[in-house]
C-alpha cells in the first residue's frame, strides 16, 4: 500500500470511529472487502450496496441513516489535532507496531499512550472480578509482581479489584504494566484509578480502540476483553463470579488458542465460582507467577518470591545494616510476610517505643511499609 493510501485509510477509519455506536463488527461489515476509504465514500453518497452481506445483528436502518447524515460532519483534522495535543499515538493495520496482525476481529485503529514497543515481548494477561476478596486481591498483586520480576509485561484492564491489584503488583516490582481500556484514553474510568492510570502510562503502555473522549459504555467492555486476550500469550483469571465479565476474556483466549490459567479458590467463595468452573472445564491451575511463567516459557527464569531465593531483586537490601541489631531482627521477622508490631516487640525483646522508632526509620528509608500497626517489606517503588 502506498503511503498516501495508508494515510487516507487511517483518516477514513477515524471518520468511521467518529460515527455513533460504531463497534468493530459494524465497522468490518461496512468496510467489507473494499477498504475504509471506500466505505466512507459509500456512506457519503448515501448508498450502501447490497454486496456488503448480511448486516450484523441489532443494526437498525435508523442508525445507518444517522451515519449517512453525520459522515460529512466528522472533523478528521480536529480529531487528529486533539490526539496530538493529548499525546495519544494512533496505530493502523499498516504500522510496524500493529499488535493485531493475527487477530480475527481486529480493531479499526489502536490508540496508545506510553511506549508501544513493550508489546514486542510476550505478554501475560492477569484479569478478574471487580468484586474480589482480599485474598484475590493479594494473589493478583503477587502474580502481577512475580511476572514483572521475571521481566514479563502484564496486561490487564485497569478495573477495580483484581485488575488494579495486578497492575499495582507490576508497578511495585518496577515492571511493565499494559493497560487495555474501553474508554478514550483521556477518559479515566474508574475515577478511583486516576493515579494508577498515569502510572501505567509512565512505566508501560495504555491502549484502547476508542478515540479520545469516548465515554464508558457497557458494550465496549467485552470488546476490550477480546483485545486483552488477543494481546496476551496467556490469560490468568484470578477470581471471577459465576457469570463474571472476566470469563469473557477467558472465552476470547480459548477462541484464539491461548492458554487460560485460573487461580483455584474455595468452593464456597462466590468470587471463585467462575474460576473454579474454568478449572473444571480444563483451564490450567495457577498458584503463583512461577506456575504461569514455566508453563508459558516466558520470563528470565525463577527470581523467586514464591519460595526461591530472592536474588534478582538487586537494589532491595535484604540484610540489615550490621550496626543496628534491632533493625536486623525486625527485617528477619517481616521477611516471611506482614506482621503486627506486637510480634516485633516480642521477637526483639525491646521496649515498644524503640521498636516503633526503628520501624519508622526503616519506613523512612523505604525498606518497610507500616500499614496501620502492621509491618511488611516495601517494594522497589513506593506503592500508590
Amino acid at each position, binding site marked *: 500500500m502506498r503511503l498516501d493510501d495508508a494515510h487516507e485509510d487511517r483518516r477514513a477509519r477515524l471518520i468511521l470511529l467518529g460515527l455513533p455506536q460504531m463497534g468493530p463488527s459494524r465497522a468490518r461489515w461496512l468496510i467489507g472487502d473494499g477498504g475504509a476509504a471506500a466505505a466512507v465514500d459509500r456512506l457519503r453518497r448515501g448508498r450502501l450496496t447490497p454486496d456488503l452481506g448480511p448486516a450484523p445483528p441489532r443494526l437498525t436502518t435508523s442508525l445507518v441513516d444517522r451515519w449517512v447524515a453525520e459522515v460529512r460532519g466528522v472533523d478528521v483534522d480536529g480529531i487528529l489535532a486533539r490526539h496530538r495535543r493529548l499525546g495519544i499515538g494512533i496505530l493502523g493495520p499498516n504500522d510496524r507496531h500493529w499488535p493485531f496482525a493475527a487477530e480475527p476481529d481486529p480493531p479499526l485503529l489502536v490508540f496508545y499512550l506510553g511506549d508501544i514497543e513493550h508489546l514486542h515481548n510476550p505478554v501475560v494477561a492477569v484479569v478478574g472480578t*471487580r468484586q474480589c476478596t482480599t485474598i484475590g486481591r493479594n494473589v493478583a498483586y503477587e502474580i502481577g509482581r512475580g511476572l514483572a520480576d521475571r521481566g514479563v509485561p502484564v496486561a490487564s484492564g485497569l478495573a477495580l479489584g483484581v485488575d488494579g491489584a495486578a497492575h499495582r503488583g507490576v508497578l511495585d516490582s518496577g515492571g511493565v504494566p499494559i493497560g487495555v481500556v474501553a474508554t478514550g484514553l483521556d477518559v479515566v474510568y474508574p475515577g478511583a484509578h486516576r493515579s494508577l492510570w498515569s502510572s501505567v502510562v509512565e512505566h508501560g503502555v495504555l491502549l484502547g480502540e476508542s478515540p479520545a473522549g469516548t465515554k464508558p459504555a457497557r458494550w465496549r467492555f467485552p470488546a476490550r476483553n477480546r483485545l486483552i486476550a488477543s494481546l496476551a500469550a496467556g490469560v490468568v483469571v484470578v477470581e471471577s463470579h459465576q457469570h463474571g465479565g472476566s470469563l469473557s476474556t477467558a472465552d476470547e483466549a480459548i477462541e484464539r488458542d491461548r492458554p487460560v490459567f485460573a487461580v483455584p479458590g474455595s468452593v464456597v467463595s462466590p468470587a471463585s465460582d467462575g474460576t473454579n468452573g474454568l478449572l473444571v472445564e480444563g483451564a490450567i491451575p495457577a498458584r503463583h507467577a512461577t506456575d504461569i511463567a514455566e508453563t508459558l516459557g516466558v520470563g528470565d527464569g525463577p527470581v523467586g518470591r514464591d519460595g526461591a531465593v530472592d536474588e534478582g531483586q538487586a537494589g532491595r537490601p535484604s540484610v540489615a545494616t550490621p550496626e543496628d541489631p534491632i533493625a536486623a531482627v525486625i527485617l528477619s521477622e517481616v521477611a516471611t510476610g506482614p506482621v503486627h508490631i*506486637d510480634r516485633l516487640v516480642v521477637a526483639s525483646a525491646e521496649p515498644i517505643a524503640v521498636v516503633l522508632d526503628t520501624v*519508622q526509620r526503616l519506613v*523512612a528509608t523505604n525498606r518497610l511499609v507500616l500499614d496501620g*500497626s502492621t509491618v511488611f517489606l516495601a517494594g522497589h517503588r513506593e506503592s500508590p
Partner: protein
Amino acid sequence: MLATIPTAVVQGVDGHSVSVEVHVSNGLPGYTLVGMPDASCRESRDRVRAAILSSGLRWPTKRITINLAPTGLRKQGASLDLPIALGLLVASEQIDGDRLRPFGAIGELGLDGSIRPVTGLVSLADATLADELLVPADGAAQAALVRPGHVRPVSSLAELVHGLCGAAPMPGCLDSPDAATRPDNARLDLSDVRGQPLARYALEIAAAGGHHMLMIGPPGAGKTMLAARLPGLLPPLDAAQAVSVTRVHSAAGLTIPKSGLVYAVPFRAPHHGASMVAMVGGGTSAMRPGEISCANHGVLFLDELGEYAVSVLDALRLPLEEGVVRVSRAARAVSLPARFLLVAAMNPCPCGEGGSDGLCRCSESARARYARRLSGPLLDRFDLRIEVRPSSPSVLLGGAEEESSAVVADRVAAARSRAAGRGVRCNAELTAKQLDEVAPLSAEASDHLHRELTSGALTGRGLHRVRTVARTVADLADGGTVIDADTIRVAVGLRVMPRTVLGVSQ
C-alpha cells in the same frame, strides 16, 4: 389562704429556682394547676391527694389554685409533689406556716405518703432558695454535697408533718458525704491483659496526654477489655470534678452510689443504636444530659464505631473541640459539660477479619461502603490509631506477669503533673503556640515531619496532633524539652491508619 414553698426544677444539668404558690379559698371545690406544668407535673394532683389522705390528713374541699412561678419556665417531673402537698397543708391551715418558713422542699410522693427519690437532686438542692431543704431520704447525700448541714432527709409525709407540728423530732441535718469512702478505681486491672504491648503503650499515652484513641481489630482481639481499663489509668477525680460528675449523673438519672458522690472515673459505653438525643442530650423538656455529658471527666467508649449513625458521630466533633455541647430546642438552649476521652473500636471490615491476614471475605465494594461511614474529620480527631490483634495462645496461657494498672497510673500521674506545669490539664490541650515553647523540634525531627507533610502522609492538623503526642511520649520517657526525631517517629507510627479501613485498595 396563701402559702409559698421554694423548690426547683432541672434543665440540662442546671437547676432553676421555682416557687410553688398555693391558694385555697371558699368557692366551688376545684383544683387548678398553672405555670407551664408538663404532663408529669399535672399528674401530681392525684398523687398529692392520695398521699395527703393516706397520711391521715384532710384534702380541702375548697377552691384550690396552684401556681408554679416563674411562669415562663416549663416545669416537669414529680419533684414538685412534696412542695405542692406542703403548700396545700399550710394553705388549708393543717400545718403552721411559720414552722415551715425556713424550708424548701423537693420530692416525689407515693400514694401511701412515702417520699421518693428524684433525679437531678444535686442541681435541685443547689437552686432551691431556702435556708434548709427537705429532700427524700434516699439520695439525700447528693443534696448534702452542695448544701452540707442544711439538708434534712425525710421519708414520709406523715412523719414530716408530725415533725413540723412538734409531735415528733425533725430529722437531723446531713453533713457532706465523706470523701474517705472513695471506691477503688481500678477494679479492672491492666495486668489482666496478656501481651498486647502496642495497645498497652497506646492506652498509657492516651491516659497521660488525653489523646483520643481508635482501636481496629477483629472480634475477640481484646479491644473492649483494653478500653474498660482506661479509667483505672486516669488520675482519680478531684473533689470539684466528683461533684460535677455527680451533678450530671444525677440529672441524667444514673445510679448514684449510696455515699452520694460519684468518685469513680466515668466510663460510658453507649450501644451503637444510640440516637442523637441519647448521645448529645436534650429530648424532653428537662433537656436530659446525653452520654457524652455523662462521660464528662471520664471515658466515652464507642464500640463498633462503623455501626453508629453517621449523624450521631458527626455530632461529636464540636464537643470534642470545645468540651461542652450546646443543645438548642425551640423552647430553650442549654450548655452541657462534655469533656471526655474518646476511645473507639471497630472491625477492619464488615466480616471483621480484614487487615493483612488475607482472611477477609468482604467484597471490595462492601469494604469501601464500610470505610465511607467514617468521615475524615472524625478520624482526624483520633491522635492514636492502632491495630489490635489477638494475642498468641502461648501468651494467653502463660507468659510473664504483666504490668498492673497502679504502676502505669503512677507514670500517667507524673506525666499529667508535667502537663499541669505547662498550664494545661493534659498535653492534648496544648496550642500550637505553646508547643513551640514546651516542645520545640530538633532539626532532625523537623526534617522528618517535613518529609511526612510533603509526602501527604500528614495534614496540617495532623502535624499539630503528632507534636502533642510526641510531647506525651517524651514526658512518659522523662525526656527533655526538645523533641527529638526518635520521639516524633514513635508519635507518627502511632497514627497510621490501615489502608483497608480508609477504603484504599492494596
